[in-house]
């Protein structure tokens, strides 16, 4: 069968197909509502319905497109292919960006026009100033620790016998949620308080006491508690930096290193004069990714301190503004600020793409 033959579907088949699809979509949704109390059955049904509906939807839309007049058929099919993704993206990200922009100029309930009040809050309120300072700490120290640690491990483990095991253990936290990591580190920072014969059960305090020091409530320690939280991100993200940097290091042609060695260069010279310059583009990519990541950071702070004790960050204040204080104007202004900070990266990505085939 070739494209020159008209529709593969006759109208009756098509109408039947559409009817079946509608029944599956709506019936499945109704069924799910009635299964709320049977968890396992509902889970299986939910998975089957969710996947089946999407597959069916593509099938039906494609059948309709293939029934279109021959002239526009190939465009119709292409639109069926790209359409769902494009519509979803516009609904989930493009329009919300514009709507958040509008909300950021409106009052707490999304009405009226308050000019720049919300932005005045976002940039001058002491709460926000503190959040900005803390995010800056996260971005500077969190990112640089991740990248430097990742680089050190990548270089040291390169060609080591147990490289795979080392790397996979350091990479493992990538699979752990921030909330889970929060519990793990909260337990390390656990503090029992003053008292006679108190045995600290938190690892950090046990070490400090073992070395003759005094147990501390680490998460309540002004200013420094930010660093105890940053450690968690470093623990989680170093693996990412390590993996990407390690593959870049392995891509350095061995002849270059060999030539330098013949010229009498030591390990340090090779590292700073060859390895670093060679993988610089990758370092920039990794650094940017982790920078964006620490800018949007939310879960760790939310779980560990809730943003109290001087550890607040921008994304947490966004959440508090919307869901605790119910001020969608201020929350949206904060979201817009986050977006604006990221725009240079966005522009850079687009510029990188200009040369690609699809954009020519």
């Amino acid at each position, binding site marked *: 069968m070739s494209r020159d033959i008209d529709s593969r579907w006759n109208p009756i088949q098509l109408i039947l197909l559409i009817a079946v699809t509608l029944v599956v979509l709506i019936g499945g949704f109704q069924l799910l509502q009635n299964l709320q109390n049977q968890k396992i059955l509902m889970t299986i049904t939910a998975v089957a319905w969710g*996947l089946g509906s999407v597959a069916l939807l593509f099938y039906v839309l494609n059948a309709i497109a293939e029934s279109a007049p021959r002239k526009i058929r190939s*465009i119709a099919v292409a639109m069926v292919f790209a359409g769902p993704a494009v519509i979803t993206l516009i609904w989930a990200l493009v329009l919300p960006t514009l709507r958040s922009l509008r909300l950021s100029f409106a009052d707490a309930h999304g009405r009226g026009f308050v000019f720049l009040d919300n932005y005045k809050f976002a940039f001058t309120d002491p709460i926000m100033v503190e959040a900005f300072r803390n995010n800056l700490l996260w971005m500077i120290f969190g990112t640089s620790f991740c990248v430097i640690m990742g680089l050190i491990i990548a270089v040291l483990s390169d060609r080591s016998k147990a490289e795979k095991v080392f790397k996979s253990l350091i990479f493992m936290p990538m699979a752990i*949620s921030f909330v889970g990591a929060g519990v*793990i580190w*909260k337990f390390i920072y656990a503090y029992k308080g003053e008292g006679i014969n108190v045995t600290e059960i938190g690892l950090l305090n046990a070490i400090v006491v073992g070395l003759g020091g005094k147990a501390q409530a680490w998460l309540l320690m002004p200013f420094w508690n930010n660093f105890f939280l940053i450690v968690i991100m470093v*623990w989680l993200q170093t693996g990412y930096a390590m*993996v990407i940097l390690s593959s870049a290091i392995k891509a350095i042609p061995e002849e270059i290193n060999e030539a330098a060695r013949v010229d009498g260069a030591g390990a340090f010279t090779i590292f700073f004069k060859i390895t670093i310059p060679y993988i610089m583009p990758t370092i920039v990519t990794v650094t940017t990714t982790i920078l964006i990541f620490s800018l*949007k950071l939310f879960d760790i702070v939310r779980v560990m301190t809730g943003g109290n004790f001087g550890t607040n960050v921008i994304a947490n204040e966004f*959440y508090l503004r*919307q869901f605790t204080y119910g001020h969608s104007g201020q929350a949206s202004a904060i979201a817009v600020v986050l977006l604006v900070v990221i725009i240079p990266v966005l522009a850079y990505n687009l510029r990188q793409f200009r040369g690609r085939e699809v954009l020519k």
Partner: protein
Amino acid sequence: MSESNLKTSPAKRILVAVVLLSIVLVWTVPTLGILVTSFRDPADIFATGWWSVLPHKTFAKTEELQLPRETDPNGPVEIEGVTASFEEWRQGVALEDGRELRWYGNKRSRRIDVYEEKWVGFGANLTLQNYRDVLSGGTVQFTDANGNTIYRQGNNFSSAVLNSIAVSIPATVIPILIAAFAAYAFAWMEFPGRKPLFIMVVALLVVPLQIALIPVLRDFTRWGITGTFLCMWMAHTGFGLPLAVYLLYNYISTLPRDIFESAYLDGATPFTTFVRLVLPLSIPALASFAIFQFLWVWNDYLVALVFLGDKNRVVTSALAAMVGEKGQDWHLLTSGAFMSMIIPLAVFFGLQRFFVRGLMAGSVKG
């Protein structure tokens, strides 16, 4: 092992190994700590650090002495030939034979605990009860360090795990399916708006999802679907699509042109070509993104917090709620944390190769 490595001196190699080993130790001990703790008896958890399950020499209580009623705790007290004040006894007094005596509780208890140094930790008292308690939705009880029985409402982690599965699997497969169709269209089909739409996809790669949360939540509220799995699938599909389309486009656009041409000549429709050829050929890319998206959705907290609320809690929100309600109940927190980690860790260790490949492709460097 390469030639250059043989040239480095043994001392240097040992140094590198020591540094690496210590880093690996620092990276794994935190997880080990909660794994061990999750199997310990609650009373043990509150009394000693988790590392005490390792064999070590310590002072352990061997017997109790009851002082006579007429003993005056306010003056100096003589026990076993040593005289000391109550405060000193309370701190513990070492005897010459190596034993240590400690006054238990307040002055009126008149009880002395005898401690002796000995090896402990061989028969660690391990239990699965913490897991049973954390999975349960009913009332659970445990004994705290002071011997009190504490009752708690269970956090129903079994339901949270099921909810996480119900959220994660469709929220992984649906965006892949939608993105694969779109990536194929962007790579191999002609349609109006192809270029600007693809630029849109690339631009959306780094947009912070905070910017979308409030408007999307308003939509869900208007449609009456907040708190349902459906809204989680929709949200995660929307937020995951830019990366999905981008990754799959990168892969699908490199497939050789010939296969599409011969499929066309054989009379295959684009749909057939996609299902029979493109999907099977793209399995490595699909798997990479699937793992990436699955871990992201399973570990997500923000989206679940905003759209699911307290209805149908997933593991991350259940765990976070537990941290808020029971910040000191380490037996429940650690077993809950481990429950939340088992599936992603299994996926991670089982499919690490694909995951790494996805990460590399996802580093947006053009």
